[in-house]
């Protein structure tokens, strides 16, 4: 998690993704390598053509070499075509594999990590940073190797043509490397800064767009605009710094090249004057010098780019290595027959914060309906999340029908426990696609039956396409109550023995809440139910209520009695109801 990646560790990290497309990468590289070799030999062939015709009027050699020259150019085009095909193929699939891994990890990431994660950063990681990995592999590994090879070839050939020129040209390489390394460190620093700024900005923008209506209602457009401008300014500031740095580095290299170029021209002119240099050789030296300058510039540019990309790869590496549910060691299948739940002396605290549950014990009998109430932060939702395996107790244990949760697989735990939350997850798609999320193999009959029991069938039936009606952005809109009913229909389909209602009706009006409660009454029959509620009406549906405070149960009893006898109960709902009416 805390491993800082460098050039080589980044290659090592990405190599596991390269292995899958080894064949395509090899083909791509073979194409690029031959193309690179042609770039070395085409100028030599051209130089021979010139010398043979200019000095010795050797037309037959000239024509033959011209033919070789044409074949080389055609060969280069064909190689480029095949390499580009491989490049396109790899660009799509390679990034796709990393995206899949990031997404898998996203789905399994530790609940605590996810609750602190920045949405914008996650979107950037999945969408943009994965592409940078591909660019890194192609440009910063394959092109880098090729460019170094070409440079070696060029240097060798230049020394063959004249050691004096070779020595002069060799000055460029160490100077460029020095400048690149010098500026590379700063570039990396700015790239990290840029990535963080952009992640903050994306997260902020995502939240702003989600709450656009609230901003208008609060009349906070100016504040939002100022924040937007500030975020942009921060991004632009680092962009300017990075741009200036990169330009300075490139300009220094260009100036060095210019001086070396002038020196080479001087030496070449002198050699030509001494009859030691042919026009062909002169053309070749100039072509090689241009190529060498280009490749050295390219290499230094790639080095600077790589520093930038390493910071993106680092983010993916960190993301893939965050603690996740793969570390859950339970192997047994949870078999829920009755639905009896026991929390025994459970301690739990989030990292670097106070205990949420402390020596918490609670027994919930089979088919019992219990309400968990308490102030915000009293540990109600943490209790629910522990029951479905999002968090593990740091001390004590949880049992369902005598089986310890820690010993069971997460899949079997979640198969047996249904959860209804305030924010219902409905994605753009058909009603049917949304309903079968928890049971992919549900039949049409089962879906209709579940909709009827949830009291949403008449609504669905009123559309011509029935359960195939689209909901979401491109389909019909649903009210809060209708969404809740769809969630209840999902529960019927999944048919878990244990259900948790986590403030499920908090955002509904009283009338809708009452209707939903009627639908609940039916769904609760024969199941162990835990209702986490801020409203008295929801609590009154249960046979038992437990009041939580500072991670402990301070009172437990019948709601009908507690409403008269418990001061804590009365205080809690007096406050809540007052807030609700406000």
């Amino acid at each position, binding site marked *: 998690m805390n491993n800082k990646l460098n050039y080589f560790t980044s290659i090592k990290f990405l190599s596991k993704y390269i292995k899958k497309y080894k*064949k*395509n990468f090899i*083909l791509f590289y*073979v*194409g690029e390598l*031959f193309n690179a070799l042609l770039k070395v*030999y085409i100028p*030599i*062939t051209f*130089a*021979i053509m010139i*010398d*043979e015709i200019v*000095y*010795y*009027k*050797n037309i037959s*050699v000239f024509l*033959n*070499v011209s*033919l*070789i020259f044409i*074949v*080389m150019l*055609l*060969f280069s085009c*064909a*190689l480029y075509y*095949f390499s580009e*095909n*491989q490049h396109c*193929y790899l660009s799509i699939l390679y990034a796709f594999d990393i995206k899949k891994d990031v997404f898998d990890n996203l789905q399994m990431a530790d609940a605590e990590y996810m609750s602190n994660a920045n949405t914008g950063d996650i979107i950037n990681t999945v969408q943009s940073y994965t592409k940078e990995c591909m660019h890194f592999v192609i440009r910063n590994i394959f092109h880098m190797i090729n460019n170094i090879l070409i440079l070696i070839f060029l240097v*060798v*050939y230049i020394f*063959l*043509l004249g050691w004096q020129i070779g020595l002069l040209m060799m000055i460029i390489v160490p100077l460029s490397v020095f400048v690149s390394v010098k500026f590379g460190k700063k570039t990396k620093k700015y790239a990290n800064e840029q990535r963080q700024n952009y992640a903050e900005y994306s997260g902020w923008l995502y939240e702003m767009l989600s709450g656009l209506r609230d901003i208008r209602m609060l009349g906070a457009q100016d504040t939002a605009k100022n924040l937007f401008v500030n975020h942009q300014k921060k991004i632009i500031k680092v962009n300017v710094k990075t741009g200036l740095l990169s330009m300075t580095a490139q300009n220094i290299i260009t100036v060095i090249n210019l001086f070396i170029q002038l020196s080479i021209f001087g030496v070449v002119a002198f050699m*030509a004057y001494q*009859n030691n240099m*042919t*026009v*062909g*050789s002169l053309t*070749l030296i100039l072509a090689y010098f241009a190529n060498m300058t280009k490749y050295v510039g390219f290499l230094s540019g790639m080095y600077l780019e790589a520093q930038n990309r390493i910071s993106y790869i680092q983010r993916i590496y960190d993301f893939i290595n965050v603690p996740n549910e793969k570390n859950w060691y339970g192997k047994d299948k949870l078999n829920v027959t009755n639905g009896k739940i026991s929390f025994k002396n459970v301690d739990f605290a989030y990292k670097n914060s106070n205990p949420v549950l402390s020596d918490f014990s609670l027994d919930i009998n089979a088919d019992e309906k219990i309400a968990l109430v308490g102030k915000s932060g009293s540990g109600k939702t943490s209790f629910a999340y522990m029951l479905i395996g999002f968090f593990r107790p740091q001390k004590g244990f949880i049992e369902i029908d005598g089986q310890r949760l820690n010993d069971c697989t997460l899949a079997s735990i979640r198969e047996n426990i249904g959860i209804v939350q305030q924010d219902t997850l409905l994605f753009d798609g058909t009603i049917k696609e949304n309903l079968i999320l928890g049971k992919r193999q549900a039949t049409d009959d089962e879906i209709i039956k579940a909709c009827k029991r949830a009291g949403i069938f008449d609504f669905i039936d009123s559309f011509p396409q029935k359960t195939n009606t689209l909901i979401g952005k491109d389909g019909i809109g649903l009210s809060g109550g209708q969404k809740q009913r769809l969630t209840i229909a999902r529960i019927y389909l999944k048919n878990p023995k244990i259900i948790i209602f986590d403030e499920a009706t908090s955002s509904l009006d009283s009338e809708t809440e009452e209707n939903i409660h009627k639908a609940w009454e039916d769904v609760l029959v024969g199941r162990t139910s835990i209702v986490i509620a801020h409203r008295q009406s929801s609590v009154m549906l249960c046979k038992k209520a437990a009041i939580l405070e500072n991670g402990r149960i301070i009172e437990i009893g019948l709601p009908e009695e507690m409403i008269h006898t418990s001061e804590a109960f009365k205080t809690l709902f007096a406050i809540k109801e007052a807030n609700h009416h406000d």
Partner: protein
Amino acid sequence: MKKRFINFYVKYTIKIPILFFAVILFGVITIVSLYLLTKTSVIISSDCVINNCSIIVDGRIESHTGFIYIYSDRNEQIYSVEVYETSYENNKTIFLVKGNHEFIFDMDKKEIKVDIPIREITILERVFLKGGKINE
């Protein structure tokens, strides 16, 4: 039809590298063959002295083509001269040239050089062993 074409295209340009290797093989064989089949001369450039119709250079050198190339500035003008006899004296080579070469007398007082093709090599050798240079 379109999908079939796409599948065919992807199969033969990306997944199955037969065509790709065929292109590489064809390209490499063609280029190497042409490199091997095309022959060019290796030249020795040397200072020379012109004496009547003979051109004298240091060392023992023989033109394999029967031609030598004389110039005072290679980038201005090179004269191709046919040799009809080559003789050697005191570690010097004397080329007796054919025909009427009045230019030789014009060049008499200048510093004169001669390019002598000494042997034949393939373009492959010239490219890979000599870096494209024509001189020995």
